[in-house]
């Protein structure tokens, strides 16, 4: 113990950031605080102010006086239906994306993280998860649009008319496939690190104790991965819920989901006979996003237990 004692403070000094460093001056104190001002001002004007304006505009009428009529409009059947559509689309594509993405992660389980396959998949997932928006809409117009490759092939070779019941690609169901196209890669990006936290030793221990492969997944794999899966699911939901560009480029008419309803409210003067409805709709979106992301943070904290 006497030998170890002098070494202990050294370990502390290296291991913690709390100890005062020998020389911590970066100019004078006032100058350092002044250095924070430009960025703080920037965030204030372009992050805090727009958020406050958005929320506040939901409570203001055309003359600038306080009103609850906009927020009350959130209970209008049309608006409720829009939120239901958004929630339904987001939940469906989040669940589908999470399942397919998790399967893809399972297929890569045990591959070295620095290997060629993993690197390629990482890069491809990164691109495709970013690939939302206008370009994705054009990809699907070329695929399952009225003149798309898949549409024409099905019609000419197999006599199947994709659009026998109308051009659904430009309506709500048409968004499901494009959304999956960015949900699955996002799942791979977020879920793969959790998969990597599964230790081969656990499988060995399971084997030594007479367990089977199915037993490993039932008693170890799935319980350990469940919180991460749920966290990713919530993130995917938030991702789909806040997505605008793909829908805007595909569905040029109608406002089936909340972001498109906000577009209509912003570009046309009145919607449902009310001004400033965009603010109320945005407020509704903020509430949904806040709930989803808070749940995500909670579950993620639980999930982080297994990922050092």
């Amino acid at each position, binding site marked *: 113990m006497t030998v170890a004692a002098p070494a202990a403070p050294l370990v502390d000094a290296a291991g913690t950031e709390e100890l005062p460093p020998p*020389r*911590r001056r970066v100019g004078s104190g006032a100058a*350092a605080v002044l*250095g924070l001002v430009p*960025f703080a001002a*920037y*965030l204030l*004007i*372009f*992050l805090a102010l*727009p*958020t406050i*304006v*958005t929320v506040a505009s939901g409570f203001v009428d055309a003359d600038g006086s306080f009103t609850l009529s906009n927020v009350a409009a959130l209970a209008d059947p049309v608006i409720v239906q829009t939120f239901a559509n958004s929630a339904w689309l987001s939940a469906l594509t989040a669940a589908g994306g999470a399942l397919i993405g998790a*399967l*893809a992660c*399972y*297929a*890569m389980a*045990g591959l070295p993280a620095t290997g060629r396959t993993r690197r390629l998949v990482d890069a491809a997932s*990164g*691109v495709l*998860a*970013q*690939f939302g*928006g206008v*370009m994705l809409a*054009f990809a*699907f*117009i*070329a*695929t399952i649009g009225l*003149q*798309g*490759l*898949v549409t024409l092939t099905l019609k000419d070779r197999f006599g199947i008319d994709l659009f026998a019941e109308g051009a659904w690609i430009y309506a709500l169901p048409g968004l499901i496939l494009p959304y999956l196209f960015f949900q699955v890669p996002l799942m791979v990006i*977020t879920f793969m*690190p959790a998969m990597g936290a599964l230790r*081969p030793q*656990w*499988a060995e221990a*399971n*084997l030594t104790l007479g367990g089977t*492969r199915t037993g490993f997944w039932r008693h170890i794999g799935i319980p350990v991965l469940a919180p991460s899966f749920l966290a990713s699911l919530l*993130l995917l939901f*938030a991702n789909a819920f*806040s997505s*605008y*560009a793909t829908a*805007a*480029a595909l569905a040029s008419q109608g406002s089936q989901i909340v972001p498109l309803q*906000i*577009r209509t409210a*912003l*570009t046309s003067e009145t919607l449902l006979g009310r001004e400033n409805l965009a603010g109320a709709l945005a407020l509704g*979106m903020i509430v949904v*996003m806040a709930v989803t*992301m808070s749940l995500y*943070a909670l579950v*993620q904290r639980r999930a982080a237990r297994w990922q050092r």
Partner: protein
Amino acid sequence: MNARGFAPHPAVRWAIGLVVIVLFAIPIVSMAEYTLRDATTGGHSLVHWFDLFDPAKAGTYRPIWTGLGNSLVLAVVTVAIVLLLLAPTMVLVELRFPKLKRPFEFLALLPISIPAIVLVVGLAPIYLVIGRTIGTGIWPLAFAYGVTVLPFAYRAIQAAIDATELRTLAEAARSLGAGWPAVLLQVFAPNLRTGLLAASLISVAVVLGEFTIASLLNRQNLQTALVVVGKQDPYASVILSLLALAFAFVLLVVIGRIGGGTPRARRTGRTARTAPAPTRPPKDQP
């Protein structure tokens, strides 16, 4: 069970892999096939690719080149905001205000939780004021883009800061007589270059793909131009979407190389290798 314990059977691995790859290849192959269609012969040719540079059709495609130019300006200004405003502030917080690190992280990751479509409602009146005072040029839009890229840029730079002993470097440089500008430019910048480069590339990728804010504030960028032109000539828009996809893939491969390729990143392991690649918000957000 094999050596890795829980790894799937190779046949299962390949079956899942093939199905997923085919499903994701279909839209991309469809895009390529679509751009090669030739209406006059009913077959395939490069006619739509050549049309892009046909002077007779320049009028139709002009919005695309204007939009591309605007998007490049926005990318440059946004990168400037990241490198000249965000990065120095992060260094300052690291050195002088360690207690602010958690709140700063919360603020930096906040834009992930605020959809662009929501932000734009509040940005509209602000840009009305900007339009009256600074003018209706394209570049002020980069201020809004600086906020949308903030989470990604923050992660990339913070990973580099965490992997570097900034304080020790600063003390060494100061004791050798360097002034603070020299410390920032000649000591910190080279040491943080992987993070700064990754942050810049991600910012470029995000800005080139941005549609929501530009469209609803009535500004023209690459994506809004694709929609406008796509209504008259969808072939041109599909060609440019395909090119943008290829460009984004190259950018991200470069980011991956930067993250995993330098000795520093390899030595410091996990954080440095995984962090520069988050094109999307993976973990621990607000």
